[in-house]
């Protein structure tokens, strides 16, 4: 099968073109380095099927970092290269193009962001460019699909470049080409550009960042609560509960099958959090408690990503992040981890050194709760008092900073400086944004829901067999002695290995005081990642570093939990 590579500078829209060509949807955002691994898909050509590879972005074929090395390695085994070029930045993008043209592989150039180039007063004579480069050049607007058919049609005309230039003369050659094909008309600064400047100046940028983050939290909370209160709760209470009551009666109100499917009834009613049946708690927790917040979180994250704000936040945070051995861009995996630690862990690949990756993954595993866990904690703590949620966030933030300071001292190695292109602000393209949200939510439904149901089943079995009771008695010195929780809380810690949201739900019947809920929430976040995250983290860190990270997790969670116990009681 013919192999087609999509290559180009970071953040020029390769992933969007990939989705257009193959119908395979991959996450695309407005910052460099969204694609850390590579994705494969297939497309139909006149002469049969072809494999398409979405290669991570690179500025040059002379690699300067690991992510670029991957791209350069892959470049060798393609039969055809679609070189995606950012039309708003022709000169810098041609640097890679000219290097690709020396490769003897047929090339087609997609002149992407064609519309944006027009808006900012850049016109490019694509016919002349085609003549100068000696390969087909097709203007495209990937987000709307404009020019994609044209691009596909031109694939058959791809050919190796015939441009002759000496290696040391590349920039001069580029200068000559750009001079002939590009015209720039002067124009006034747009609102988005002025906003861009305001958000990276420390004096104006810091308050803006605080406002944006506060607004983000507020909107997530409002949308999440709104969906639960006005949609999911009524649906479950009015429609699902009567059905379950009827099924319960049908099953004879007791027995093993009844307890597994429906769980325990409370005074003839179904308490969806506490009953622990597969059809009650097993469905209610992921759909009615977690999904609304997952939806709200990904809505806001996608907006922040596609607008181009995240790299600016990275710059503002850079100085602080250096204190904990990272640089500003590490804020991106941390934000992703607030949705789910798995993509968060994968995103740490944008960091280069072992030290940075160890610190970021360890801090993430210990201090960053995922949306599913947070949704449940908010559900529980919200009733216990207004201060519970800010206290939990405050404690985790303090641990994140102090543990980071410590790890920066102790972990050997280097923490390089930030060096990143800042994309222009863009108004998010809605259909792309919703597609991305749908992909992430579908991922949650496919991967989380079965695990939640499995988790609920496991809890049921463990209770019935008396294992939780036994472990509770064995671990009482730790659970009660150090953390000040009732010994039944051990059940939550066991289930937390499988799903943190189910684990938090298990705290509901324990009648914990607000302070105990805070301790339990903090410890559940810190002590160990869930199994899905654990697997990915081990793969990324290697066994040795993961063992080290796990030791830190256990020590940190016990000491912080014990300290909180002393302070709060």
């Amino acid at each position, binding site marked *: 099968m013919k192999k087609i590579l999509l290559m180009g500078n970071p953040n020029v829209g390769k992933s969007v073109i990939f989705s257009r060509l193959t119908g395979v949807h991959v996450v695309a955002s407005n910052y460099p380095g969204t694609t850390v691994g590579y994705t494969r898909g297939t497309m139909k050509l006149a002469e049969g099927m072809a494999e398409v590879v979405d290669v991570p972005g690179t500025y040059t074929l002379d690699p300067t970092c690991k992510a670029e090395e991957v791209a350069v390695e892959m470049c060798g085994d393609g039969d055809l290269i679609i070189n995606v070029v950012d039309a708003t930045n022709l000169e810098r993008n041609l640097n890679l193009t000219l290097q690709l043209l020396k490769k003897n592989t047929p090339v087609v150039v997609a002149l992407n962001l064609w519309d944006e180039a027009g808006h900012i007063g850049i016109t490019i004579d694509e016919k002349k460019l085609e003549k100068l480069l000696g390969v087909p050049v097709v203007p495209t607007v990937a987000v709307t699909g404009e020019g994609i058919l044209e691009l596909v049609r031109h694939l058959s005309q791809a050919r190796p470049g015939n441009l002759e230039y000496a290696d040391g003369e590349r920039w001069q050659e580029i200068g000559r080409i750009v001079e002939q094909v590009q015209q720039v008309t002067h124009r006034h600064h747009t609102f988005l550009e002025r906003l861009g400047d305001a958000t*990276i100046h420390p004096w104006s940028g810091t308050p803006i960042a605080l406002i944006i983050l506060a607004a983000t939290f507020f909107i997530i909370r409002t949308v999440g609560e709104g969906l639960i209160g006005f949609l999911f709760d009524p649906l479950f209470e009015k429609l699902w509960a009567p059905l379950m009551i009827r099924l319960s009666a049908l099953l004879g109100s007791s027995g093993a099958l009844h307890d597994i499917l429906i769980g325990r009834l409370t005074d003839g009613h179904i308490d969806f959090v506490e009953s622990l049946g597969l059809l009650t708690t097993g469905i209610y927790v992921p759909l009615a408690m977690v999904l609304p917040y997952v939806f709200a979180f990904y809505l806001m994250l996608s907006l922040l990503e596609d607008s181009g704000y995240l790299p600016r936040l990275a710059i503002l945070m850079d100085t602080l992040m250096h204190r904990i051995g990272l640089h500003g861009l590490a804020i991106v995996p941390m934000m992703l981890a607030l949705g789910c630690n798995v993509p968060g862990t994968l995103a740490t690949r944008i960091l280069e050194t072992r030290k940075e990756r160890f610190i970021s993954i360890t801090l993430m595993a210990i201090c960053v709760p995922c949306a599913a866990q947070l949704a449940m904690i908010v559900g529980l703590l919200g009733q216990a008092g207004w201060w519970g949620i800010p206290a939990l966030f405050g404690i985790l933030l303090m641990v994140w900073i102090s543990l980071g300071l410590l790890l920066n001292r102790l972990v050997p190695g280097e923490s390089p400086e930030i060096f990143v292109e800042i994309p222009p602000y863009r108004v998010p393209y809605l259909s792309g944004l919703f597609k991305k949200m749908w992909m992430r939510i579908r991922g949650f439904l496919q991967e989380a829901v079965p695990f939640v149901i499995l988790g609920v089943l496991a809890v049921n079995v463990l209770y019935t067999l008396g294992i939780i009771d036994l472990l509770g008695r064995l671990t009482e010195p730790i659970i009660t002695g150090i953390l000040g929780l009732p010994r039944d809380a051990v059940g939550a810690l066991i289930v937390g290995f499988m799903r943190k949201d189910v684990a938090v739900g298990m705290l509901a019947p324990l009648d914990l005081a607000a302070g105990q809920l805070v301790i339990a929430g903090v410890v559940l976040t810190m002590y160990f990642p869930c199994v899905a995250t654990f697997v990915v983290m081990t793969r990324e860190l290697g066994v040795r570093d993961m063992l080290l990270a796990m030791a830190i997790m256990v020590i940190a969670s016990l000491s912080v939990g014990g300290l909180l116990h002393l302070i709060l009681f």
Partner: protein
Amino acid sequence: MSEQRLTVLKSGMSGTVVSIDGGALLIKRLDALGIRPGVHITKRSSQLLRGPVTIAVGNSQVAIGHGMAKRILLNTGHR
């Protein structure tokens, strides 16, 4: 003619890169983003406490750590 390091330059001012006072890897990394001798760049902002410097080069913006930024020497064309 006056030469200044990028870190010393005031935000909003611009200059032409004269030289990059660093190793081959630094020169290569900067070159890949189009920052090389002879190129005109404008400083857009700098963060407090030796934080990163943001510059405009061509039609793109790049954030550069303080240690790298101070190795970029500019000709600002006036004293």
